[in-house]
């Protein structure tokens, strides 16, 4: 009998990453649509809820979303998003509008020091507090990109939200990498590796981004202004760069963010056509949010509830401070500064990845502080997209159909 049925798979069959991807995509899409139709909430919220449902704490269909196979999808989706975000960062705008540049920097510093001070108040070790503050400075690039795309938002608040997010992501990563040597030293590795490791990460990401942008721009020039060809080129370079960054142990997000920034600001010949990933990008984004939903950890929420609440609150106030102070000077209309601050609330997949990667280098971080950061992520993963949607709608920048 067994010989006859040799073509049958072993039982139970082993489903690989491909089935996981497809399944999460389908489930996420359904969840997003349901939440959108029934509750008029952003689809992102639906994706996340499906993730929570599939995650280890409920159904257990997805275990360890940030390791092994699933991490490929997370890196790919984040890579694509931060590349597009980097491509929206127009350095000439910052050069022309110094108040805006100052506000963007102030937003980073405000959030960082507010969180840092908040955590010190609760007697967390300074170094850990600084690392957590760095992570908390970043706004979720995925949420702001996906929500603004979904609303077809266009206007000053939208543009500035994307700009500030790009800036605070760069700030967060650079800050985190600067704290790494100290983490290393506390961890009793040699001083050489303590200095060399951050240098390797920063220089590696920057050179990877630069080389990738030169390849991209050179080939785009050769291809000419053809949207279909350039689309393949962009996806190819982005995926390749994600792969190389992973192979070289360089943070994917920094490498791809740099790639986007260079591709925009070094494109002197205007070789690249305006960037549109469209529906293709959406595929990865759905999976990203489902997976980040699956990695949410609500278990610590009860024990660190107060710290988490303070973390979220001071983070918001820290971000809002310089925006409110410099909003009018930088050309925002009345009422715009508050909405912009609100739109920058989300914190999500990127923070998860940062925490996860820091904890692999420095396990104590995971044990002591990850709970606070991860609880904040869990909270903001739910309210963040709502805040962004609210802000863009009230700014009158969403497409009227929404």
């Amino acid at each position, binding site marked *: 009998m067994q010989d006859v049925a040799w073509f049958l798979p072993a039982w139970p069959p082993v489903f690989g990453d491909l089935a996981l991807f497809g399944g999460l995509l389908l489930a996420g899409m359904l969840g997003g649509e349901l939440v959108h139709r029934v509750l008029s909430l952003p689809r992102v919220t639906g994706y996340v809820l499906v993730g929570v449902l599939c995650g280890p704490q409920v159904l257990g269909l997805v275990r360890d979303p940030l390791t092994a196979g699933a991490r490929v999808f997370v890196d790919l989706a984040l890579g694509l998003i931060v590349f597009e975000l980097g491509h929206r960062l127009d350095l000439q705008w910052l050069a022309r*509008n110094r108040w805006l540049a100052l506000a963007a920097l102030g937003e980073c510093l405000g959030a960082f020091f507010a969180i840092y001070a908040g955590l010190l108040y609760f007697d967390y070790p300074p170094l850990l507090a600084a690392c957590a503050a760095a992570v908390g400075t970043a706004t979720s690039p995925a949420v702001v990109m996906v929500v603004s795309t979904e609303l077809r938002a266009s206007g000053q608040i939208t543009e500035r939200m994307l700009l500030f997010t790009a800036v605070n992501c760069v700030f967060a990563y650079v800050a985190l990498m600067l704290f790494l040597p100290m983490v290393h030293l506390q961890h009793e590795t040699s001083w050489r590796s303590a200095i060399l490791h951050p240098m390797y990460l920063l220089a590696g990401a920057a050179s990877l981004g630069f080389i990738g942008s030169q390849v991209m721009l050179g080939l785009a020039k050769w291809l000419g202004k053809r949207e279909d060809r350039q689309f393949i080129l962009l996806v190819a370079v982005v995926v390749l760069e994600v792969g190389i960054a992973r192979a070289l142990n360089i943070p994917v997000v920094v490498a791809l963010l740099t790639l986007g920034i260079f591709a925009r600001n070094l494109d002197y010949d205007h070789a690249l056509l*305006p960037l549109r990933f469209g529906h293709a990008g959406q595929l990865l984004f759905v999976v990203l949010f489902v997976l980040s939903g699956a990695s949410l950890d609500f278990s610590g929420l009860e024990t660190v509830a107060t710290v988490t609440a303070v973390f979220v609150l001071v983070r918001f106030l820290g971000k809002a401070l310089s925006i409110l102070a410099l909003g009018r000077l930088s050309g925002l209309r009345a009422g715009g500064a508050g909405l912009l601050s609100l739109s920058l609330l989300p914190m999500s997949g990127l923070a998860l990845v940062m925490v996860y990667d820091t904890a692999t280098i420095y396990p104590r971080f995971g044990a002591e502080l990850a709970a606070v950061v991860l609880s904040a992520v869990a909270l903001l993963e739910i309210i963040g997209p709502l805040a962004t949607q609210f802000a863009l709608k009230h700014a*009158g920048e969403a497409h009227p159909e929404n």
Partner: protein
Amino acid sequence: MAEAMEFKHSQSLSLGIEIELQLVRTHDRDLAHEAGDLIERLAKMKVPGAVKPEVTLSMIELNSSIQPGFAGALAELEAQRNAVAKAAGVLNLGICGGGSHPFHDWAERRVYPADRFKEVTRRYGYLAKQFTVFGQHIHLGCSSGDEAVYLVHMLTRYMPHFIALSAASPFYQGEDTSFQSSRLTAVSAFPLSGHMPFVPDWAAFLEYFETMRGYGIVEGMKDFYWDIRPKPEYGTIEIRVCDTPLTVRRAALLAGYAQALAAWLVEDRARAPLAAVYQVNAYNRFEACRFGCEGELVDPYTRSRRKIGQDILDTAAAVMPQATRLGCVDAVRELGEDVRRGYSDAGWLRARLAASGSLPDVVREAAERWSASGKTPTL
């Protein structure tokens, strides 16, 4: 009956210019929706003339003050341009001339949140959003209503000149329309477009207007979307066929030419208004929109056909005495030179597409050209 419209007296042949401008995003060169932010910002700056909103959030309108001549109009337009360019830079917006945005999707347009524009949208439906086209209006002062009626009739013969000289909308919805000016086609869709009836004087015009008002078809002159119309509340006639040129300089040149031409028509009086002008008007208008200076114009006075470009050169020569007196010789000469060497803004836009290969690049270059000062480049 509502009170009769009084034709306000104004300095004969004084100039006023209105230009509608495109607001474009710098990252993809599509139309932006930031007219509100830009106008709020400009309100805080010292800008001569006035800056006004238009029906969609993707456009603003610059109005000049009343100007005696070409030089003053140009200086004021340049001051306005510099202020707008500066404010737009703060918001990271591009500002563009040209009669149409080459590739925007009209369905994406958002209506400016003011009652007047909401009413236009309610009444005209999709036409309101399709009307996201960008024109230049030239006001010429008239001493009386009768003079206004006379000038409207006489200038109609020359409207193809203004269409051909200003043509800057070869692309529409991502396609080359093969027209030099595709913008006027959008105007033709409105029920009250077309031209003024062939009335002998202001009294007869008022009679016509009151009849239309009696029917409830119009409330004021603003409801007529004519190519050229009297504007009694300003004491002017208003030429409305021009695309917004790619530079403020060309906008001023067109105004200078209009002033010299009107002066010649008022003084010369060699010809009288002719009903036949309106019989051939639609044909001439099409030729000018489609082919620009290469189009043919039927002249009912001489019962002949001729190239619009040649007709412009002959007219420019005829109005030289008036141009000299009014200080717009340079304007008339510069436009004539462009006709001779075959330059048009539409042609420039097509050449940029051929060189760069993409419409977003065309928009970027047009925006750079609008913000920079300077004369017409060589092709």
